[in-house]
């Protein structure tokens, strides 16, 4: 009786010709310059939710300004590794977040407006991010002022945060739903970082 060889060596995995060419798949590849996509959402609230969710799942994503050719949706997009498109969409769908558009990156993206301006008023420190300002008393890290923007949730954010320390205060991203809330989140994070130095 002849034992047919199946082409495999005993105890070894079958290696196809294409196996050598297949790129090694990493679990959470960083966003590179060649294989990025962008998720466009209807409003900033969805961007904020999607960003929180995807970062919590370990994906390396970035929130950026939309390219000129994208005219729909809000003023922020999420850049993601294109190879992870299906898995990312599954994650978003489970949370009932539906991107308006999903497109590969083919033009340079606008940089997000996240430049910080920091002003020291002696006893108080102000951090400005985009259109939002956060001022804290340095000794106690108590938030004394929240202002800027023109979004409808700014008074609410101010009411919830003023008078509380940075650690007591709710995180703007958790209670805000607008671009102002997002900008305030940036200011909050930067203020926290500075105060912890």
């Amino acid at each position, binding site marked *: 009786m002849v034992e047919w060889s199946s082409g495999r060596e005993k105890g070894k995995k079958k290696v196809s010709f294409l196996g050598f060419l297949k790129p090694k798949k990493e679990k959470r590849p960083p966003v590179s310059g060649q294989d990025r996509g962008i998720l466009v959402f209807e409003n900033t609230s969805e961007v904020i939710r999607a960003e929180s969710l995807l970062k919590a799942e370990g994906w390396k994503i970035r929130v950026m300004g939309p390219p000129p050719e994208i005219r729909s949706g809000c003023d922020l997009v999420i850049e993601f590794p294109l190879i992870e498109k299906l898995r990312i969409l599954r994650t978003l769908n489970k949370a009932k977040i539906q991107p308006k558009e999903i497109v590969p990156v083919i033009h340079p993206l606008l940089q997000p407006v996240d430049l910080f301006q920091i002003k020291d008023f002696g006893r108080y420190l102000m951090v400005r991010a985009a259109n939002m300002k956060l*001022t804290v008393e340095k000794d106690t890290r108590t938030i004394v*002022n929240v202002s800027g923007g023109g979004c409808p949730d700014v008074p609410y954010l101010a009411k919830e945060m003023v008078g509380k320390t940075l650690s007591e205060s709710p995180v703007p991203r958790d209670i805000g739903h607008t671009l102002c809330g997002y900008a305030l989140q940036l200011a909050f994070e930067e203020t926290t970082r500075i105060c912890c130095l």
Partner: protein
Amino acid sequence: MSVIVDASGLSCPQPVILTLNKINELKKGEIKVLVDTDTSKENVSRAAESQGWKVTDIQSNLTGYEITIRK
């Protein structure tokens, strides 16, 4: 007797900071804060209340608002 803090024409957060500095200096009493925008009016009122002071009066005039706070 009221102490006056003139914060009119100043951009945020200076009205709040001037008010808080005066609050910290006086500890109690009455302060009249002059501001010229709705935003400053809201911010100063909020900041004062967070320090345990009460906004007892807000007068509107041609140049803005006079906010009276007391403790």
